[in-house]
């Protein structure tokens, strides 16, 4: 038994491929738990960053700088009354958020956080991701229809049209990246997520910069399409607050509503991961081929630790600047504890074995986080597109460009 459990550890592959169920389950728990925590953190960050964009403070009351706000929100949502409209189709109404949640979480099975840090590596990895994430449209359509109300219906009509349209441009952009994998002279191309990153490693270039500006254009197309796919500003028409109140989830409340939110944020992280994997070198550290040598390896592997120490320092400065009033004592202590935890994590990250294992994951997450920040930035800056404009951008701008990119990539690939 113990042998079975440890049999994976020596292997140079993912638990799914090793067929080791124990480690696969552990990985699944870690990844899903991590994603849930990331969603909560994202929730806090979005509110905080958006607030600072808008010269406000954002959540400040629950915990130091509102750090515990997501937890308070979660508790509130869970204890809220769960309303199902009388005229709703109960079964469909009930199952719709679950479909969205399942679709957006299942995607994480193939996301490679590192060469071996993935639940499994599928031969059709990218195809699997696109396929499963396209299932979330079903959840949206079902939610809108089953609510038996005008606004949700309009919202779901909009979102299904929108998601299907942008999936095409997105798929073509992905294809051009997949084509690039097969252009290494060494072998054939691959659809596997790990394989794609490895191809970038072998070719010594992130696909975003390959055949410049082709790869970059494909990345931009994908980055636009993924915002539309996840129904976020400026493409948040399905839930356009000022037009359709809340779109397809107008009639949802409490826990069910929070499942939608969980699904939405999980999907945002998932599509950002695809973008990072396909174009930004996945788990690779920046400049893997220009800044080579042991010194640089060491420098880059120390960055995670220093980053956490810096965060701890910021938190500590926050502790010092807390008002010295008995009322704030608990908050101050909490923030100090938080700073201590951050510092401890930073110190642990300096330990060589941990450092080696963790830095892939760190770089991957850092790149995803950049995309998440973009999401927030868009939301603070852009007004909302109108539906016909959205369709025009999707079909008349993104689609032709992505077809062009695909064709030129193929030609260049044959030529070189």
């Amino acid at each position: 038994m113990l042998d079975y459990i440890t049999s994976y550890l020596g292997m140079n592959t993912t638990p799914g491929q090793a067929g080791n169920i124990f480690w696969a389950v552990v990985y699944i728990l870690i990844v899903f738990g991590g994603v849930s925590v990331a969603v909560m953190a994202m929730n806090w960050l979005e509110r905080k960053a958006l607030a600072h964009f808008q010269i406000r403070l954002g959540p400040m009351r629950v915990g130091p700088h509102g750090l515990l706000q997501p937890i308070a929100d979660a508790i509130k949502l869970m204890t809220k009354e769960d309303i199902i409209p009388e005229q709703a189709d109960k079964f469909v109404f009930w199952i719709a958020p679950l479909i969205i949640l399942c679709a957006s979480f299942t995607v994480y099975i193939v996301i490679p956080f590192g060469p071996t840090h993935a639940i499994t590596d599928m031969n059709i990895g990218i195809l699997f991701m696109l396929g499963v994430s396209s299932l979330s449209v079903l959840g949206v359509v079902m939610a809108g229809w089953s609510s038996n109300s005008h606004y949700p219906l309009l919202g779901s009509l909009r979102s299904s049209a929108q998601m299907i349209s942008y999936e095409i441009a997105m798929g073509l952009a992905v294809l051009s990246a997949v084509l690039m994998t097969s252009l290494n002279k060494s072998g054939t191309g691959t659809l596997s997520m790990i394989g794609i990153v490895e191809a970038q490693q072998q070719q010594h270039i992130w696909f975003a910069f390959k055949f410049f500006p082709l790869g970059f254009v494909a990345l931009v197309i994908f980055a636009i399409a993924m915002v539309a796919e996840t129904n976020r500003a400026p493409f948040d028409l399905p839930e356009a607050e000022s037009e359709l109140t809340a779109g397809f989830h107008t009639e949802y409340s409490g826990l069910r509503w929070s499942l939608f939110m969980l699904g939405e944020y999980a999907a945002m992280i998932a599509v950002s991961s695809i973008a990072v994997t396909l174009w930004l070198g996945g788990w690779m550290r920046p400049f893997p081929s220009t800044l080579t040598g042991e010194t640089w390896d060491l420098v880059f592997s120390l960055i995670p630790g220093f980053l956490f120490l810096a965060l701890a320092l910021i938190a500590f400065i926050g502790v010092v600047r807390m008002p010295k009033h008995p009322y704030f004592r608990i908050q101050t202590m909490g923030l100090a504890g938080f700073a201590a935890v951050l510092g401890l994590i930073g110190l642990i990250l300096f330990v060589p074995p941990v450092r080696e294992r963790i830095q892939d994951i760190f770089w991957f997450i850092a790149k995803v986080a950049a995309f998440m920040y973009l999401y927030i930035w868009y939301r603070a800056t852009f007004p909302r597109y109108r539906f016909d404009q959205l369709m025009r951008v999707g079909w008349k701008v993104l689609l032709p460009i992505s077809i062009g990119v695909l064709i030129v990539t193929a030609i260049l690939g044959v030529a070189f």
Partner: protein
Amino acid sequence: MTDPKAYLSHLELGEKDETFLDSNELIINMGPQHPATHGVLRVVLKLDGEKVLGAECVIGYLHRGVEKIAENRTYTMFNPYVDRMDYVAAVSNGLGYCEAVEKLLNIEAPARAKYIRVILTELNRLTSHQLWLGTHALDIGAMTPLFYTFRDREEILKIFEKYCGARLTTHAFRIGGCQYETYDGFERDVKKFIDEVPPKIDEYEELLTTNRIWVERTQGVGKISAADCKALGVTGPVLRASGVKWDLRKAQPYAAYSDFDFEIPTGVNGDTYDRYLVRMEEMRQSLRIIRQAVERIPEGPIMAKVPKVIKPPVGEIYHSIEAPKGELGYFIVSDGSTQPYRVRVRPPSFVNLQALDLMVRGQLVADVIAVIGTLDIVLGEVDR
């Protein structure tokens, strides 16, 4: 000019709901509880998919019978009530009413009072436009301008609060002049404000004016021609954005407006984008007026000789001013007693709202939101 009959839409509201899935036409009820109807406006939309075939406004949810109240109050007692109509531009309402009664009494406010009135009214125009910009942008999906405009609106409200103790329903003016002399440092505060605010207006514009999504969402949306504006009685920035250079402050100057030098911004296309530009420019022009007024404010009394009991002679008067939303008129009939026999308010929002149907025909649902926003209505004034 086209046939005015073409503007009149009357949807059959009695259609059965169950058929809507079957047919292409669907009737949707926007409001009275809707985040983008700026209060309790209910718009019944007839849609073909997302295209609007017609819109009918159902109003009156906020009706308080202001005109009836006026008949049962004395002239002075009615003064605070007018603030409750267009509550985001309460000072303008008060100015219109006080000037109308003064005209009826055939008295004139002293010069200093007139200047104070101009300063406060123009500041109020800024708050109104800022509120409009924030909510309009929010309706179109841009969240951030709302917070920027509210930050700067706050400064004006602070001046109001220092001047008369109230922020929103100020009751700033009295019949015959002003109740309060300016507080110490009033001029300094106002000057500081007008020095600080132009870069902030640039900041709003930076976020929106050249933003491609904003331009696409507003250009060509809710177009209305000058002829249609006149036929529908639409006034204010909406009329000016259609290319009519008409502003009551210039056309029939009241208060001290004839003393100041300012431009009337006009648009060309009469679409939502032009109305946006016109209002942005109006903010700058207001600042210009305020600057001149603060620099030239004369010394002297602030209250004319007004009898203790206001009993205007028998007669009728119509007086209108350029409120932030358009022509705000008061028609007052006096029977010689202490109470007005009849007060009729000509609310700009009410008349402008009538153009909604014409402006949204053939547009999309999302444009209805933009058009309601660009009309800049206040339901307190629509329903009175």
